[in-house]
């Protein structure tokens, strides 16, 4: 594996190795000196063509804790806003001798394209509605830390599937790790053609959230991505919450030892209520903390050894 563009780049052993290394990296967060020298002398550029706070800052902290030199470039205020093309931007940055490029872009497939243009390793930090592999890794990490090996476990992913890049990466990774996955969404937010895909990839889909909750080991709520919505996908927010929100009533259907995940940022009161978000079995803050450890592990595995 040279780049991390998709969760499908990882076979089971590689995924487990990254998660295992993340466990070691997580310990660094509790140390007085939060620094490892593994990437000393390496330069990582976070190239964010889309706004992001948690992903960008967690990649930045991850790189810095591994002693890499980290530079952040966002599209706003850079030559991109003057009309420079993606190719010119990334090749210019790469020509400065960087070792790794962490890219977030609003176009699906942009990081894969960039990987063809530059010698540096490329990490996909979210591309359009396509993928977000490090998010999937940190979700798997957080869930498995709480409920153990994911093989055979039932993970329910519910919410705005159409606009989510997180769901695709999660689905690929969870299948690689042997989990059983059910996707839940209202018909309007179920991606077209998902029937054929679910059959080929071996996951289930349903419109009935209540029916799958009693059998779930983990439920992952997806954000309703209002900013990506061009039409009306549901009549009112209230109606969405009643049908597909993780409400207090729905929490009662969830087994007591099942966990709740949300990749954030949350629309409290829409897809998840405060009761669910702040429950003891909610992993939401664990996920943020795991983000740094998992990204340290990814950067280490891509940049740490002989090239």
């Amino acid at each position, binding site marked *: *594996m040279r780049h991390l563009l998709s969760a499908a780049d990882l076979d089971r*052993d*590689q995924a487990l*190795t990254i998660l*295992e*290394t993340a*466990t*070691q*990296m997580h*310990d660094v967060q509790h*140390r*007085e*000196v939060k*620094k*490892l*020298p*593994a990437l000393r002398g390496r330069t990582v550029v976070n190239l964010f063509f889309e706004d992001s706070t948690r992903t960008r800052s967690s990649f930045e902290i991850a790189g810095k804790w*591994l002693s890499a030199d980290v530079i952040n470039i966002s599209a706003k205020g850079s030559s991109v806003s003057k009309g420079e093309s993606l190719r010119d931007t990334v090749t210019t940055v790469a020509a400065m001798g960087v070792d790794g490029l962490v890219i977030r872009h609003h176009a699906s497939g942009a990081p894969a394209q960039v990987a063809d243009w530059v010698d540096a390793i490329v990490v996909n930090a979210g591309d359009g509605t396509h993928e977000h592999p490090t998010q999937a890794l940190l979700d798997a990490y957080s869930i498995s830390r709480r409920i153990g090996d994911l093989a055979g476990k039932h993970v329910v992913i519910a919410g705005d599937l159409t606009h989510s890049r997180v769901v695709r990466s999660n689905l690929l990774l969870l299948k690689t790790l042997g989990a059983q996955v059910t996707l839940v969404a209202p018909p309007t937010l179920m991606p077209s053609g998902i029937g054929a895909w679910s059959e080929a990839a071996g996951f289930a889909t349903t419109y009935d959230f209540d029916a799958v909750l009693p059998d779930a080991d983990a439920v992952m709520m997806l954000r309703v991505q209002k900013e990506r919505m061009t039409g009306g996908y549901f009549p009112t927010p209230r109606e969405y919450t009643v049908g597909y929100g993780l409400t207090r009533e729905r929490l009662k259907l969830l087994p007591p030892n099942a966990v709740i995940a949300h990749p954030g940022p949350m629309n409290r009161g829409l897809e998840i209520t405060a009761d669910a978000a702040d429950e003891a079995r909610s992993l939401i803050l664990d996920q943020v903390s795991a983000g740094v450890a998992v990204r340290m592990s990814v950067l*280490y*595995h*891509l940049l*740490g*050894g*002989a*090239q």
Partner: protein
Amino acid sequence: MSTRPDRKAPGASTGRVVLSENEIRRALRRVAHELLERNKGADDLVLLGIPRRGATLAARLAEAIAEVEGVHVPTGALDVTMYRDDLRLQPIRTAAPTQIPPAGIDDAVVVLVDDVLFHGRTVRAALDAIGDLGRPRAVRLAVLIDRGHRDLPIRADHVGKNLPTALRERVHVSLVEDDGIDEVRIVDAPAADTSEVTS
């Protein structure tokens, strides 16, 4: 991406045995006594083994100390992967767990434990790692085998066996917990095989 190759082939049937099960036990017992004498007892001692086999040896030394002194010395494991100076030269290595006793290592007498002392680079990395974990009063080094060929000015305080070797030879330490057998072998490495990890 690849995982770390097993650096000492377990149960290798080639080469000649230089330490048998009994000899390993006696060597560790002697090292345990030396540690206690040098430290004038078990107070403030912390044993940190370098995974995998160093950690196993640290646990055995702690047992031996408990038998002699009746005190259970805190033990831990110290992974030095991230601190190695050859990370760029080798395929990627996966880190092993670092476990520090709950009381930490500040003001303790830390004894680093490893199976083979070779170039001294692992110990150098371990000293850097310790620096990030706390400030011990003293750091000592105990190894099962000292095979010479140091690249750095590092020496062991306690040695199970000094084993003069040629550079082309390899030392394979096998322990019951990790490999199913207790023995140390010297193996003549093929001329093309120069991939041994420095210890």
